[in-house]
C-alpha cells in the first residue's frame, strides 16, 4: 500500500501550499501518474479521500491523468511506445523493455511520473484575503 504514502504526500504538499497562500477550500487535485509506475489509481483515490476529512481538502476530487510509457533502444536507436506483452494476464497488457524493432533490451524514457500537476480551489469570500504570492 505505497498508495497511502503517496496520498499522504499529496495532502501534505497541497495543504502546506494552501495555508501559505490563504486558500481555504480546494475542490480538485490533478495528478499525473506514469504507466511504468505501479501506483493504482483507485487505491490512491481511496487513500486520498480517507485522510482529507476536516481539512481544506475535504470532498476534493482527485483527478489522475496517465502518462504513456516510452522506450529508447541503445542498440537500434528506436524511440517510441514500448512493446506490450499481450495475454500475459487476462486483464492487462504489460509494457515491456523489449525493443519493438530489434527485440533487444531498450531503456525506459518516459512513464515514471508521479506528480501533482495543479489544484483547483474556491476563492475566499473576500478576494483581498487570497494572497497569491509565490511561497
Amino acid at each position, binding site marked *: *500500500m*505505497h498508495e497511502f*504514502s*503517496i496520498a499522504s*504526500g*499529496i495532502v501534505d*504538499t*497541497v495543504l*502546506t*501550499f494552501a495555508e501559505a497562500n490563504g486558500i481555504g477550500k480546494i*475542490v480538485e487535485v490533478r495528478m499525473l501518474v506514469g504507466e*511504468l*509506475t*505501479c*501506483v493504482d489509481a483507485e487505491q490512491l483515490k481511496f487513500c486520498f479521500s480517507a485522510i482529507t476529512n476536516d481539512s481544506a481538502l475535504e470532498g476534493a476530487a482527485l483527478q489522475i491523468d496517465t502518462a504513456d510509457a516510452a522506450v529508447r533502444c541503445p542498440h537500434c536507436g528506436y524511440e517510441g511506445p514500448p512493446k506490450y*506483452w499481450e495475454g*500475459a*494476464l487476462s486483464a492487462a497488457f*504489460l*509494457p*515491456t*523493455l*523489449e*525493443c519493438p524493432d530489434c*527485440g*533487444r*533490451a531498450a531503456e*525506459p524514457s518516459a512513464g*515514471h*511520473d*508521479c*506528480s*501533482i*500537476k*495543479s*489544484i*483547483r*480551489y*474556491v*476563492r475566499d469570500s473576500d478576494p483581498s484575503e487570497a494572497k*497569491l504570492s*509565490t*511561497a
Partner: protein
Amino acid sequence: MSTATASRPAFTIPTIEASPEEIYDIELEHSLLEANARLAEENRAVLDGHGITAIDFMGAIGSGKTTLIARLVGKLKDDVGVAVFNGDATTSNDQDLVASSGVQVVQLATVNGCHLDANLVGKALKKIQLADLRLLFLENIGNLICPAEFPLGAKARIVVISVTEGPWSVRKHPHMFLGAQIVVINKTDLATAMDVSVDALTADVHKLKPDIKVIPTSCKTGAGIDEVAAALLAV
C-alpha cells in the same frame, strides 16, 4: 545537503486563471517521488565515496531473501567487507539470522511501511563503520510491488523470486523486474514438487527485460550461490 524534511522544493505559480463561481486553477508541478530520489542520490554519493557497492534485494515474503543474503555473506565475508541492512516491518528475526555471521547488521523497522526508503537507509549508513566495506546488502521489505518506486542509493537491484510462489509471479509483478539488473529464481530444489518450470519463469523475465541476468538457485543445496556472489562482485 538536504534532509527529508528540508527538501520540499519551492513552488512556482505560472498561471492563475479565473473561472465561473469564483473557482481558480493553479499549476503546481510537484513530484511526489523526487524527495526520495534525491536522498537516494545522496546515499549513493556517500557509498561511492567509500568504494562501497550497495545491492537492493527485493522480493516477496518467503522468497528466501534473508537466507540468500546469509549464504552470500558466509561466502564473501572472508574476502571482502560486507554489511547488511535488514528491512522488516516489525520483527528482528532476520537480523538475528545474519548477525550470527559476525558482519555489521542494522535492522530497519518500518513498522507500517511496505518498503524501505532512502531516508531510512541514509540514517542507517551513519550507524556503521564504512571503512573497509566493499558490499552493502539492503534487504527490502517482503513485497513485490511497492519497493519498485523507491530507490535507496543501490548500484544494482536484485529480485528474488522462488518456485513456491507459483508459475505467474513474474507477469503479476512486472514493474519489479523492469528496474532490476539481476533476478534470482530460488528454491529450485522444489521445482518438481511444485510443478513449476524454472525455464518458463526465466522466459517470462526475459520477455519483460531481454538483457537481465537470471540465476536459478537453491539456498538449501547451495546451487547457484557462487554465480550470484560473482555477479554481485561484478556490479
